[in-house]
């Protein structure tokens, strides 16, 4: 099964773009002034802890809930006016799988295929089986959904998104409930779909699950988008830290502050601060001139993981 029509060249056109997207529940803004830019052809990792507004954002993208403010453009069409035409080219998994318990996996997909105005009933069977095969569920196709494990349910929801050729896949926590092997399979499926030409927008609260396949990331925290861009840019934007090991941390800290560095901190065995635009050799020379006994000097960039935790607060914090 080919997943996309003669694949559109990867252009700089946005697959998803939002401006000032906001959703308020009462006085609380679950999503606050979010400007997403998801380029076509990207695998966009939409990251953030539980409760940071990822799912609410996705629900607005898919027209399930109405934004309190802001605009959404999807595949070149303005939502919600062009919702019907745009959504036909979007495969979606939203907030976990949901199917009829007493129907088999295949019958559940038949139901969704019957609901698709563009799906050809003559190819329904073969498309359904191809989608089931793609997620490794073909052998369990006739089993009732009730008897599916959480991992199988999750796979069925992914299969549902693959019933028709899609230009954009919106996958909300697709690896939820999957074991490490299943998680790897979903990752490789995402890469494969992307190679076939689909833009993939994938949310996760676990950075490590998607970091390896993403070309772009956006990080949500407490309803706001706190970082976004190509994954290389996002990491290189992380401010490098200069760190000196010394027996006189306070003196070192004074020197670093004197150089105009920010966030200077003295610790028991040294001092560190944000390097900023300063050349590292100037910092070392200044420390030495001030008679700071430096035994080790290091400039390092925080990893995406470090920064993710810094950006989003503690991993298990549920904000709002």
């Amino acid at each position: 099964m080919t997943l996309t029509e003669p694949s559109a060249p990867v252009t700089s056109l946005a697959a998803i773009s939002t401006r000032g997207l906001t959703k308020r529940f009462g006085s609380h803004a679950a999503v606050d002034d979010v400007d997403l830019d998801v380029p076509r052809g990207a695998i966009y990792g939409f990251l953030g802890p539980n409760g940071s507004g990822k799912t609410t954002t996705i629900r607005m993208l898919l027209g399930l809930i109405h934004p309190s403010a802001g605009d959404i453009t999807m595949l070149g069409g303005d939502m919600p006016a062009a919702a019907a035409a745009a959504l036909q080219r979007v495969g979606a998994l939203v907030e976990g799988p949901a199917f009829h318990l007493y129907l088999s996996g295949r019958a559940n997909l038949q139901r969704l295929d019957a609901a698709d105005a563009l799906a050809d009933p003559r190819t329904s069977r073969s498309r359904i089986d191809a989608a089931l095969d793609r997620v490794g569920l073909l052998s369990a196709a006739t089993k009732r959904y009730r008897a599916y494990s959480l991992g199988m349910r999750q796979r069925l929801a992914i299969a549902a998104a693959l019933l028709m050729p899609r230009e954009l896949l919106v996958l909300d926590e697709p690896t939820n409930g999957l074991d490490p092997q299943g998680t790897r399979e979903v990752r490789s499926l995402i890469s494969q779909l992307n190679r076939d030409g689909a833009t993939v927008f994938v949310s996760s609260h676990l950075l490590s699950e998607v970091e390896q396949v993403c070309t772009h990331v956006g990080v949500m925290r407490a309803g706001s988008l706190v970082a976004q861009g190509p994954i290389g840019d996002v990491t290189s934007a992380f401010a490098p830290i200069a760190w000196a090991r010394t027996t006189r941390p306070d003196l070192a800290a004074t020197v670093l502050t004197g150089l105009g560095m920010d966030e200077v901190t003295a610790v028991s065995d040294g001092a560190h601060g944000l390097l900023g635009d300063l050349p590292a050799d100037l910092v070392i020379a200044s420390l030495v001139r001030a008679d700071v006994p430096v035994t080790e000097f290091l400039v390092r960039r925080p990893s995406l993981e470090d920064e993710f935790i810094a950006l989003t607060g503690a991993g298990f914090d549920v904000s709002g």
Partner: protein
Amino acid sequence: MSVADPQQMAPTAPLQLSGKRTPAAFGRLLLSEMRLIVGRRRNQAGIGVLMVIPVIMTIALKASSDGGESGEGGPLFLAAAINNGYFVALAALGIEIGLFLPLAVSWLSGDSIAGEANLGTLRYLLTVPVGRTTLLAMKYLSLLIGAFIGVLAVALAGLVAGGIAFGFGPVTLLSGTQLAFAPALLRLLLAALYLTAGLGALAAIGLFVSTLTEQPLGATIATVALSTLMWILDTIPQLDWLHPWLLVDRWLAFADLLRDPVLLDTISRGLLVDLAYVAVFLAAAWARFTAKDVSG
């Protein structure tokens, strides 16, 4: 965003408006809905209950008539069934329109939107995408079909049970004239359609209630409660000014189809009231559902 941004200057791919659903595609969706309804065990059990009642009525009538009792009195049409099994079907409709048929329709309609919202399948239907208006129209049509199946099931079970117990013959109408069996069956079909129209109005109420909640059982109970309340109000003579506006008030007028000539006065007014309820509650359901945040 600056005007000179090259990303914004690039031509946007035109979005072809292929969102229109052909009648065939709508039919396919409706068929899948009917499969879902008919394939459900609890609905099959419900149909079973609807069909058991005429059988029980037949047995009770047979037992009492064999014992030499006249069978006079009792529910509408039942006494006449001793001479002709045909009347069991009508008697069963008269009995079941009081509670069991409205219960069945409330059950289906309460579940229609709230059930999918409760399961979460609603969000997957909407993202397929199925337009909200299309979905509502499809759900309502499926309820009409479901109501008709329920009414037919009662009539058929009554015909079969009555036919076995009492046989069939020319049908003596309420006005005294006799009717051959085939045209009598046509009158029964018309009665079934008339009752379906009334139940269809109840289904519109149920569909509306179903858009208000994610608890299907709550929607069902509210709809049953409403239809039962209307029956109760309809029996209170002090409220006779209200009676013409009650949905259930003219449901039993299906008996007028068994007169010669057919009395259309009450029936046509009943149909108008049905239509008014359908219009009001479908509009309310549409207004509510198209504006609703689906977050279940």
